[in-house]
């Protein structure tokens, strides 16, 4: 029984390639269209540098968080604990710096180590005990949220070292506060690793085909561990940005970043490099969502719309990309 299947994929017609280009920049175009619509509606308030400066700065922690998520996502693992890591880390900054008067640099070092530890704890259960990442990180989310409330006595701690605040939002470059450039820097580093190093290829193969990666001599568990630790560290950095942006440590609001960050991660995978989690897509997606929400808020639409917008944008974007491509699902199962 020889099943002769000789598909002949002819070279792609012009229109098809144009479609691909459009697909890559579609979200960017929608973002610009959104700005145009809001701008037309509120020329005085929306279309100002000040407004955009606030959007860029206040969503920098969310951008960092979304970048954190796509590292383990590319390796095929979910990390839901990034939001709680951000919360815990900013709480630690408040407690150690404000209440215990530790120098800020030492505190930041401790926070980064905390991020590493979170990654290691997640890895222990995911890789050693072979528990699904979704379950483990959902659990650690709850644990860390509780810890953050415990150490802060469930209160917001104000008065964080000015030097941190200054470093995050104290200055501007081209009119945009520093905070944005930290996220941009992380995106550039990630772009380099994802696209221009063998490590990036390994990460991708581990996510798409564990068995293929293993049989090609890649140490799958080590790559997954590295990805989880990286997302821990990046969300710790997001926590630092968050504390800097607010100038205080809030043990509650950090988790609100989780959904927009996930929305941005998946939305980002429909653009720039469609079908792949990619840092530039994430940046575009985060600021697309940020613009949408800010505009709605300025139009005086009630707060609940924010959640509807975030969730709706995610599902709609992924659906559209699925329909136009009519091929395999996004690379995580």
């Amino acid at each position, binding site marked *: *029984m020889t*099943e002769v299947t000789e598909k002949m*994929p002819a070279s792609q017609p012009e229109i098809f390639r144009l479609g691909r280009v459009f697909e890559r920049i579609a979200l960017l175009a929608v973002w610009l269209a959104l700005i145009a619509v809001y701008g037309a509606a509120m020329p005085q308030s929306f279309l100002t540098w000040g407004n955009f400066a606030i959007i860029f700065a206040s969503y920098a922690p969310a951008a960092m968080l979304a970048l954190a998520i796509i590292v383990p996502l590319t390796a095929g693992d979910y990390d839901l604990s990034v939001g709680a890591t951000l919360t815990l880390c900013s709480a630690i900054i408040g407690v150690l710096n404000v209440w215990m008067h530790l120098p800020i640099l030492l505190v930041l070092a401790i926070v980064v180590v905390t991020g590493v530890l979170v990654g290691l704890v997640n890895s222990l259960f995911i890789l050693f005990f072979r528990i699904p990442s979704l379950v483990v990180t959902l659990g650690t989310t709850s644990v860390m949220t509780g810890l953050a409330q415990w150490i802060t006595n469930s209160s917001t701690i104000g008065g964080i070292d000015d030097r941190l605040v200054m470093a995050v939002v104290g200055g501007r470059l081209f009119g945009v506060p520093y905070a944005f450039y930290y996220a941009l820097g992380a995106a550039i580093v990630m772009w380099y690793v994802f696209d221009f190093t063998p490590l990036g290829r390994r990460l991708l193969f581990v996510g798409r085909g564990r068995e293929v990666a293993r049989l090609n001599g890649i140490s799958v568990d080590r790559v997954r561990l590295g990805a989880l630790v990286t997302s821990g560290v990046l969300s710790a950095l997001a926590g630092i940005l968050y504390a800097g942006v607010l100038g205080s440590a809030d043990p509650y609001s950090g988790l609100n970043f989780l959904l927009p960050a996930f929305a941005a991660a998946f939305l980002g995978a429909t653009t720039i490099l469609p079908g792949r989690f990619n840092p530039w897509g994430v940046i575009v997606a985060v600021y697309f969502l940020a613009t949408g929400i800010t505009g709605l808020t300025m139009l005086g639409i009630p707060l609940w719309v924010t959640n509807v917008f975030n969730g709706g944008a995610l599902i709609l974007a992924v659906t559209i990309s699925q329909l136009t491509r009519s091929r395999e699902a996004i690379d995580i199962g």
Partner: protein
Amino acid sequence: MSTSSTLTKGGRQEPGADKPLPVLHVTNIAKSFGGAKALAGISFTVMPGEVHGLLGKNGSGKSTLVKILAGFHAPDPGGTLSFNGKHVHLPLKPGDFRRLGMSFVHQNLGLAPSLTVLENLRFAHLTSNERTFINWRDERRQTSEALARFGLTLDPGERVDRLSPVERALLAIVRAFEEIRAECAATGRPGLVLLDEPTPFLPREGVEKLFALIRSIAATGSSVIFISHDIEEVMTITDRITVLRDGAVAGELETAKATHDQVVEQIVGRSLAQRAVLVHTPAEERTTFARIEKLAGTILRPTSFAIGKGEILGLTGLIGSGYEEVPYLLFGARPSRSGTLSLSEGPAVELRAMSPSRAITFDFALLPGDRQNASGVDSLSVVDNMLLPDISRFFRGGLLRRGAMLREAHGLGTRYEVRPNDPSMKLSSLSGGNAQKVLIARWMNRKPKLLLLDEPTQGVDVSTRVKIYAALRAAASAGMSIACASSDTEQLAEICDRVLVFARGQICREITGIELTKDGIAEACYASIDLAGALSITIQPRSRVDK
């Protein structure tokens, strides 16, 4: 008419005397795929209460026939099928067979391992739309009754993955019979259970239990079609045998009157006495590349052999005989129970400590049979798939040199005739044969000292096959040692210098020289069961796995 179709105990009527209606009667069933004819007009009959064996090599058309009966494939027009004397319209729709009173047990058994015996056995009833409420006590009683009917003592609440392989097979067969029992009771007509290779992974004692179950099904008057590669088993359990060869019925035999040799002759297609005289180049003197001692895996029992430098060594046998494990064990892709590998120019390796990354440092390469899940990633590009193991080579000056990668992949694509040769395409957009060329090129490019293959040309078209063979032979003559596990005897005859035939987890024959032909190998595979039997091997029963 009506009297002859009543169920008869034992069911083995003397021919001639009041001939009963056949349960299944097919004529002129044909099927072609594209240009290739898989079935060229098959007719056969299964009588009530009969255990009917269906034998044939891989590719003889057995599985196509099964798929037609199951409603997966539509046969070419012109064939007929009647069930208990009633003409049935072809093609069958999937699931139609149940309504007729026919059910299937495929090799994977189709059980849900994490569910209980009861849930698996009563699956159809539990999920039926006509139910509004599940009476668990009643379900339990029905399950126990069904199991007791065949003398099985399984706990209805036990999870299926805690059962031994034999118990699982028995459960699947009981379920298949239960599915059609109601239908048979309603019409008073016999049903038909089709068993598609249920035995290859079972230990000997397990097969006995399975046979007892088959006999008790036949004793109810229903019929069983038993498909197996194992001639001995078929001769033990069946009343009649239909042998398929090259898509046609090669012969029909009464089991009681047939001999083992006759059956092999029908399968292989030539008499055992007249061996084809074919001058094969005599195995030249080779230096040994590696010596493998006492290699054991899941099925494979301690086995020793050697591979010569520049030799293409074939590994074959019937399915479940253990040969298919060898490439994976040597590469460390699956855990070995024991074994050492000593390279003649290098160290001796304990195979229990082997891992793929370690194997790669020894310049071994493995091309798995499962192309889609283990070999390449469909959603990534050809260039990434091709150059995955040596990606580090392209990392210079802190950057991955994409241009150099594409150039190298294009060059390899030209050399291995990948069509279309566009390395930036996704692997999924290539045909099966071309995807396989990409993956072969990946490993060939590294010039491994030992290339391990599992079914390298499965699902690959004929012209590609020829190219792959040529590439393998060229590599071997340049000094690469190749071990190729395959069930395709033609392929083995074409490329191998030497073939090891496995049976029941051990090497039972080594074929070289003039015997190394397609038919010679096939014959050895079928004969191997006798030999293994003669060695009176005791296979450890896989007892209940706790936790």
